[in-house]
């Protein structure tokens, strides 16, 4: 089917790029279409902390002039994107959604922001997040939290909430996120977008405000798998400024797209999928996806992962205490209401002893080896992202339903969430695919095949949103 050039905001990066290169579309027109989406949706969904429409139109005009002069900066040239507001941007405020940082103007770009700007993308603004990318949404914050565009009373969980909302509502086709326990994959799941937590070390975190040093991952949310491959090509690579950045070759992330699923082996551990209690609707969707994989020629086999309780114990003794270490100096300097949420979230981690933490790191190595062993038998592991669709927002959210993601922050394996269908309420459902370290192209190949089998593309929330 030909892309609909009369609706530029609906175009993928690949489609928009082709239209720009052929002259059928200008970057200014594409950016104006994105701004129209923002104009329509933003009051209801709060995707942005700092929108930058004037800068965007100026950059789009520049991209059109560059193209007219024969300059082509690549697949993102002249195409709208956004940055989660924990990614530093030179001269543009980076708030981390915190009163402490409300007027913070960085001197330099984060590594990823610099890469996307160098690729000629049109920055639409800084996107909403939970304060300092913490995993819980608090109400006493200086910026209104993002709302789920599929149904406004539902969560946009994780912390890359504005990124999920902006992609789902076609304000842009690529947005950065960060993922410490699921903060890319959870909003992707609940907003019906693609989200990839890359392998630990694949994408530099330099200039991204930290949460947990050993669990933070920088990554992307996009509208489809091809756009994810395009984006990963732009932001991956070794960066000495991030001490955990891996000095490994950058593959062609699009290499496997279109090769199909025939001959691939997909592993399932039903006990891991079940977790604390998978709903009937999600089980039915998971089984439907399993049948689709088989129908596309993949072999689906049982594998055994380490017990979910071991991942939970390891995470409980690791992530919060690293977060407290990140914020301890800040908490000593600021003792007033401006740090109330950070205290509520991180001070309980004082209950973790040094022995707990160090034994957790020993356990973590064994968990990583256990996942590696399972992945020696298969090309990827299929599991779920959440227990079901987005749950209603409560002042004290019950995050126990979000347990399948943090395991792979502890092990560092790449994990891809992609939407597969709608539940009876018309809300998105997703699955999560986990691959071998630094084998994102294979993961994207599987995701691309599954995306086509599910027929998700073109599915999105309807304006005006439901209350």
């Amino acid at each position, binding site marked *: 089917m030909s892309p609909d050039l009369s609706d530029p905001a609906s175009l993928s990066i690949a489609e928009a790029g082709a239209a720009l290169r052929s002259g059928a579309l200008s970057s200014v027109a594409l950016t104006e279409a994105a701004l129209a989406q923002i104009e329509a949706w933003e009051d209801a969904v709060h995707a942005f902390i700092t929108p930058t429409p004037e800068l965007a139109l100026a950059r789009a005009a520049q991209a059109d002039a560059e193209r007219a002069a024969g300059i082509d900066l690549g697949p993102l040239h002249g195409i709208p994107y956004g940055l989660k507001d924990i990614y530093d941007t030179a001269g543009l405020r980076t708030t981390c959604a915190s009163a402490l940082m409300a007027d913070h103007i960085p001197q330099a770009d984060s590594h990823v922001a610099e890469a996307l700007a160098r690729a000629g993308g049109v920055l639409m603004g800084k996107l909403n997040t939970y304060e300092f990318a913490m995993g819980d949404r608090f109400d006493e914050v200086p910026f209104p939290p993002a709302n789920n565009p599929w149904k406004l009373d539902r969560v946009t969980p994780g912390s890359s909430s504005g990124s999920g909302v902006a992609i789902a509502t076609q304000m842009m086709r690529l947005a950065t996120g960060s993922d410490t326990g699921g903060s890319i994959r959870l909003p992707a799941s609940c907003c019906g977008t693609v989200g990839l937590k890359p392998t630990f070390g694949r994408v530099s975190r330099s200039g991204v405000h930290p949460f947990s040093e050993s669990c933070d991952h920088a990554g992307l949310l996009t509208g489809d798998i091809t756009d994810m491959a395009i984006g990963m090509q732009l932001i991956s690579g070794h960066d000495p400024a991030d001490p955990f950045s891996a000095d490994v070759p950058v593959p062609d992330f699009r290499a496997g797209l279109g090769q199909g699923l025939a001959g691939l082996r997909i592993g399932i551990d039903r006990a891991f999928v079940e977790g604390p209690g998978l709903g009937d609707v999600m089980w039915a969707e998971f089984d439907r996806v399993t049948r689709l994989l088989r129908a596309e020629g993949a072999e689906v086999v049982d594998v055994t992962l380490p017990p979910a309780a071991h991942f939970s114990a390891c995470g409980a003794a690791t992530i919060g205490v690293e977060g407290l270490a990140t914020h301890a100096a800040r908490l000593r300097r600021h003792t007033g209401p401006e740090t109330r949420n950070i205290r*509520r979230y991180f001070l309980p981690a004082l209950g973790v002893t040094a022995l707990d933490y160090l034994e957790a790191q020993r356990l973590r190595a064994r968990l990583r080896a256990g996942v590696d062993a399972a992945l020696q038998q298969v090309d990827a592991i299929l599991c779920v992202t959440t227990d079901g669709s987005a749950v209603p927002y409560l002042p004290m959210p019950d995050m126990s339903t979000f347990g399948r993601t943090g395991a792979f922050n502890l092990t560092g394996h790449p994990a891809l969430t992609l939407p597969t269908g709608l539940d009876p309420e018309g809300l998105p459902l997703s699955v999560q695919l986990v691959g071998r370290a630094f084998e994102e192209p294979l993961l994207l190949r599987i995701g691309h095949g599954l995306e086509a089998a599910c027929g998700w593309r073109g599915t999105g929330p309807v304006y005006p949103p439901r209350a």
Partner: protein
Amino acid sequence: MTAPSDPVPTAEAELAAALERAGLVPGPSSFPAMAAAFDTRRQRASAVHAALDASEGETSA
């Protein structure tokens, strides 16, 4: 004669001691609620020892 037992410290007392050691203060947050979360976190984190034992048992077996 039975030796008098030491009083069991409450989670609130232990959190207060931990805060003092770390040079931190609870700030405007509810201290009892934070102490309850501290106790929960302590119990969840302590599960790591049994998990490690089980994991090493699997390996040695």
